[in-house]
């Protein structure tokens, strides 16, 4: 690093200095910030950019993991863009998105509002319970999902039968496979969403509410006119993060359904993986870049839609 000699700050001089005009602190060093960020770019160049350029090159070839790589121009891209399966994988992802993101935001916000209440007892316990799924290994839980949602011998149908409901073909029917996978995703990540939203809520200064209460605003109106605008940033953050995650979703369908039944859980990420699996590396690379573009556009769009008017 820049500092060969570190002089410990002397205590008697650590009293806060008066804020100085011109933000001098950000001007002085020239080299330091570059050195601080350099490691990321070095690692990225070596293990991100280099393979990425390679992948971009691959996307214009028909390379199959062995033999010659022939340049075929945009053929991989046009193949995908005219392929029913490519679009249906995006369609599946879009349905997953609808099943996941709105539910998570609305449900997470409701839970966060309840948790934000200062008079709530056992708050710490609830928080731990909600976020516990977030730290479990996905591979392990995906396997638990297979066992729990088995049509004939699974836990969930067992519970259904206890209350007189018939067996549901959770993972074997095109109607239920998506919701069942969405449930795994929701189960695993909603705790994280709740904490993020809670953070947003708690940053709303109390006096804002008190003022509103004095003005006689109803709770409902307080929520719509005060709370919601103030957590908008948290919501935007979540929507972007989860949109990225849903469209790249891979491990859940890979472990639990392998994209079936009839390709109904073949998500964008899984469809991409299947090219790799079949060593169709050129098409796989092209698919990746299409997916990156889409995800990028969606993120921009959600940020735009959720940006508050005053920003």
């Amino acid at each position: 690093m820049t500092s060969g000699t570190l002089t410990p700050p002397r205590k008697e001089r650590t009293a806060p200095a008066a804020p100085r005009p011109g933000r001098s602190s950000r001007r002085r060093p020239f080299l330091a910030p570059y050195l601080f960020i350099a490691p990321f770019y070095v690692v990225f160049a070596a293990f991100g950019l280099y393979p990425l350029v390679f992948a971009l090159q691959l996307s214009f070839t028909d390379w199959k993991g062995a033999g010659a790589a022939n340049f075929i121009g945009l053929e991989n891209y046009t193949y995908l863009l005219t392929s029913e399966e490519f679009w249906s994988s995006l369609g599946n992802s879009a349905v997953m998105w609808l099943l996941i993101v709105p539910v998570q935001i609305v449900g997470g916000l409701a839970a966060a509002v309840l948790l934000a209440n200062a008079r709530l007892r056992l708050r710490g316990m609830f928080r731990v319970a909600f976020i516990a799924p977030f730290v479990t290994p996905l591979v392990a839980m995906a396997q638990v999902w297979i066992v729990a949602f088995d049509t004939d011998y699974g836990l969930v149908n067992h519970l259904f039968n206890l209350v007189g409901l018939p067996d549901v073909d959770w993972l074997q029917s095109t109607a239920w496979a998506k919701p069942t996978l969405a449930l795994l995703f929701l189960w695993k990540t909603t705790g994280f969403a709740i904490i993020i939203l809670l953070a947003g809520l708690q940053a709303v200064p109390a006096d804002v509410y008190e003022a509103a209460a004095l003005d006689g605003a109803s709770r409902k109106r307080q929520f719509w006119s005060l709370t919601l605008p103030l957590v908008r940033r948290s919501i935007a953050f979540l929507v972007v993060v989860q949109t990225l995650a849903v469209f790249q979703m891979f491990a859940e369908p890979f472990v639990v359904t392998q994209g079936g039944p009839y390709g109904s859980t073949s998500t964008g990420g899984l469809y991409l993986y299947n090219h790799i699996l079949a060593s169709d590396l050129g098409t796989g690379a092209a698919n990746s870049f299409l997916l990156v573009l889409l995800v990028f556009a969606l993120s921009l769009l959600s940020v735009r839609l959720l940006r508050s008017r005053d920003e």
Partner: protein
Amino acid sequence: MSRSFVPRRSVLRGALGVGALAATAGPLAACAPGSSGSEPRKLTGTPSASAKGEITIWNRSGDLFKVFDAAIDAFRKAYPDIKVNHQAVDIDAKLANTLISGTDLPDGSFWDDAKIGGQAEHLYDLTDLIAPYRDKTSAYKLSVNTVDGRIYGVPWDLDPGLLWYREDLLEDAGVDPAGLKTYDDLLAAARSLREKNPKARPLHMEKDPFLGQLWLEMLAGQQGTSLADADGQVRLDSKEYRNVLNWIRDAVDDDLVTHTEYLKQADLAALESGQQALVPWAVWWSFAPQQLLKKGKGKWRAAPLPAWTPGGARSGAMGGSSFIIPAKAKNPELAWLLYEFLCFKEPGYSAVYGPSEVYPGGLTTSVPSYGPARRPDKPLFEPVAALGGQDLWKVAVDAADTIPSAAPIPAWWAKSVDYLGNNLQRLIEGKMAPDDVIDDSTKKIQRNLVDRA
């Protein structure tokens, strides 16, 4: 080889991580980005018995691994100077990657027949070495691993299809199993069984798309055809496939079908209750009565499959694996020696198929590809108590002899399950007509797989 018995689909499901990343590359000679660029290598000479060295052999984990461990012990006795590291590996997840990267390769590995053709570039050409044994080796097994006339995977197990049936139920319904000579006879038998027991849906049809397609290939292979011809072109639009698909539709229309996943709980329940009584399936189904079924134990028997035309072949192959030697293996000659010992030498194949600690009666889930090891009068495994003491060996080797030779399995075979395998399911569910299965699958396989191969 272990997965001869069981769903061969970790390539599609199960095996976590990036599976066979490059399971299906075309055999091209030129240099590729990241590939070694070496010409396909031929292995010709064989070393003498005094050969020395160390080899690493990959195999799948599980009970079969233990069987091979014992057989490899026999090899160690015959060749005391060769050290064999026998490793249990998730082959579907690892082997293709390892071949591409060329690092820490095994000297030899067992692998599914369907995977080998696509990796020929990375494998030793073993044509010359197998030449002395060729005449006596199953023509079917030789045909599936041939790429441009060269053999890159040498045959290991042969998996003939058989008709598995409940002897007690057939007898109750007045059906003589010996009379089940054609597939129409089979439908008639199914009707008789249902007359006797209105709850019976006697015929098993597979619900897992991958296994279902493998099963379809068995029925087609019995008629001497397969999904792709020797040039890799789809040949689904044929009389043979129409025979099979129409027969399936008839069985479905007549409500004679139990549509379940291979030996999953629902399947087992239907087998135990007598709802299912006729299962046309590979020899590896034998492990169900031996290990899984309780009530039905001792009541199941095996017979040759019915024929599609009177006097036609009575079996087709369903699955199978071969042995490969990576082109960058350090000790390919010694790996060949091990394969030769296990496959062609009496102490070798007896150790694999004969009684062992893991399987006291012997390994009953496939038969050897090598003719002299497959003699009806010289059984390697014992009559099976769970089949009422039936001499399964004789039934299986007789059936194996009738399997017609086929064409090389195309590198895209596993991927075609998304089209043909899924459409077969729609047919069994009564949602698609045979002609539509053929047209739609052909069109999609052509566009997505053949044209892009």
